[in-house]
């Protein structure tokens, strides 16, 4: 079956990491396309929500690229973007719950990512866990 990963890059990208990166890829496509359409066609309707969606898209792109690269430095950036992502989904989720008038249209992070099966709130936690779980390979290289 699967042999143990040989280096940090492989350790980051293989096993559960491969699935994690795949889900990040789907969210990059979803968030980027969604905010691009919203900003291009009806930006005036809910500028704050659409800008937040664009910010979410950028953070997903950074996390994806850094996880795929799998170097020591890129993993640190991925860790930061996961932390920002978690803070973002918690803050936007809470604000959308208590002050819905601020968000006339939904963002990826509204109601803790309810529109996306709550994956947005689980994904950064899994990302942080995975970077931690594979950290032992950092010393090996």
């Amino acid at each position, binding site marked *: 079956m699967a042999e143990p990963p040989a280096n940090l890059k492989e350790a980051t990208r*293989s*096993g559960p990491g*491969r699935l994690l990166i795949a889900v990040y890829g789907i969210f990059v496509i979803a968030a980027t396309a969604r905010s691009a359409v919203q900003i291009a066609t009806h930006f005036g309707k809910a500028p704050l929500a659409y800008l937040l969606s664009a910010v979410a898209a950028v953070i997903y792109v950074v996390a994806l690229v850094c996880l795929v690269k799998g170097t020591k430095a890129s993993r640190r950036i991925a860790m930061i973007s996961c932390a920002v992502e978690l803070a973002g989904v918690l803050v936007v989720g809470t604000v959308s719950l208590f002050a819905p008038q601020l968000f006339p249209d939904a963002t990826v992070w509204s109601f803790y990512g309810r529109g996306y099966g709550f994956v947005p709130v689980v994904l950064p936690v899994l990302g942080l866990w995975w970077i931690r779980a594979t950290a032992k390979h950092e010393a090996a290289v």
Partner: protein
Amino acid sequence: MVDALATVLTYASLAVALWGVVLVVINRRFALNRPYGLALAGAVLLLELGLLVQMVAGLINVFSTDRTVATGTFIGYLVGPVLIVPLAAVWAAAERSRWGSAVLVIGCLTVPVLILRLRQIWDGHG
């Protein structure tokens, strides 16, 4: 929007996903050098061809209809699965454990969701 094709694609992607689930459960990777993996790759290819046909048909429909459809969003949901399925397949095939099969499952499960949204947008509830 071609209703019959959308229905066929929904069930086809669920079937490919189920195939992937079986591979995960019996601890097999998405191996292209094995008959079961090669057959699965063929199924993914057929699914992709169907999605391409849906994209072309959908583009023709959305530009020829008299109804008000959110065109940009509709095109996004037409193109999304066409990109996601092959990317998931390539990313899945590079993995040497059952997690590769899991990638294929997730990739295929996005298709019914996107098709559902496509229908809603076409019906004007987008």
